[in-house]
């Protein structure tokens, strides 16, 4: 992460900011390990039962190995499912695991805000400039992009340039990291009444 926080006071916060902007994957690990525990407990139990020549709980190890060695159509389907699950887990392990949050530079604190809050700030700026009811203005914020959509009142003009300026000023005042580019879309079709 190369969020260039201007203030030197923020430097010790780098670890805190990085950790709060990324998922820990602990939930994924716990789910995967619980599944692993169930499977391994079963495999271990079956192995011990087989050593002493006792009846298997579900499938004896020899039969299980035979199934793995000579998969029928069910076995092929199961193998495909396992491969798919493996690929999904590889994606979970390798993806950056970013949370939808931005950092704000601050002298005293490490500050992160949810992208929804950032979108709200953009809506606020657009509403103040356009004097439209807040329900007509929506915003979506992704990592590097913030898009405001304005639905004007039918028959009245909306000054898109002024709204864009107001939104850009509001974003610049917050200076979210990573930086976002603000765009304003004015809907083609207006709405009657307020």
């Amino acid at each position, binding site marked *: 992460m190369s969020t260039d926080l201007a203030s030197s006071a923020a430097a010790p916060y780098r670890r805190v900011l990085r950790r*709060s902007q990324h998922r*820990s994957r*602990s939930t994924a690990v716990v789910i995967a390990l619980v599944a692993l*525990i169930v499977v391994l407990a079963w495999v271990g139990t079956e192995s011990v039962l087989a050593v002493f020549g006792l009846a298997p709980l579900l499938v004896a190890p020899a039969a299980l190995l035979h199934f793995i060695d000579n998969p029928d159509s069910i076995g092929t389907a199961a193998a495909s499912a396992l491969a798919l699950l493996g690929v999904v887990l590889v994606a979970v392990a390798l993806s950056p695991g970013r949370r939808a949050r931005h950092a704000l530079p601050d002298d*005293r604190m490490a500050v992160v805000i949810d992208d929804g*809050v950032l979108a709200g*700030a953009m809506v606020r700026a657009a509403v103040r400039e356009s004097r439209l009811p807040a329900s007509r203005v929506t915003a979506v914020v992704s990592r590097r992009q913030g898009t405001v959509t304005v639905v004007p009142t039918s028959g009245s003009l909306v000054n898109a340039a002024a709204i864009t300026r107001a939104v850009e000023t509001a974003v610049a005042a917050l200076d979210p990291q990573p930086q976002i580019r603000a765009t304003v879309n004015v809907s083609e079709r207006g709405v009657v009444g307020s």
Partner: protein
Amino acid sequence: MTNSNRALNRLIIALIALALIVIAAWMLNRVTGLVAIDALGEPDKTALWIAAGASLALVVASISWIATRGRGHTRTLLAANDDEGTGTIEARVAADLISDDLSRVPDIVDVSAHAFLVRGQATLELTVTTRRAADVRLVVDSVGRAVAALDRTLDSRIPVLLHVASGVRANLAREQRVR
């Protein structure tokens, strides 16, 4: 925020993925016969004991890994020693002081706080839930003033992480009319 080792979390998921892919590849290879490998055949007693032992070891390791997640929280924010003993300030005190200061900021719905250890240093995490379309600058500056007041009260600068959140409560809360 906890002190979970995130690189190890990734590694564990990757290893489980690898095991699944190896089993799947083995079975699919047996079906298609792309690579000639001998079948696993019948397990003998040694193999069964090894399987049982390895399973037990992995189960124990997995349970201990799961049980040690979520560590790193602390109740004590600050401890001061002198000749007569140790004085500690709990995170709840700081949370109450901050919440009090912020109760009059209109855009803030809720303030919660807890402390956790980052590299041995107690850090205060403040989660501030705001109304929809809140004035974020005002919220952050208000919290900044409350933290400055806390600094003066405690006479020390505790690291603070401020998380401005848009929770479910924020979406349900009535939006403030803009004058």
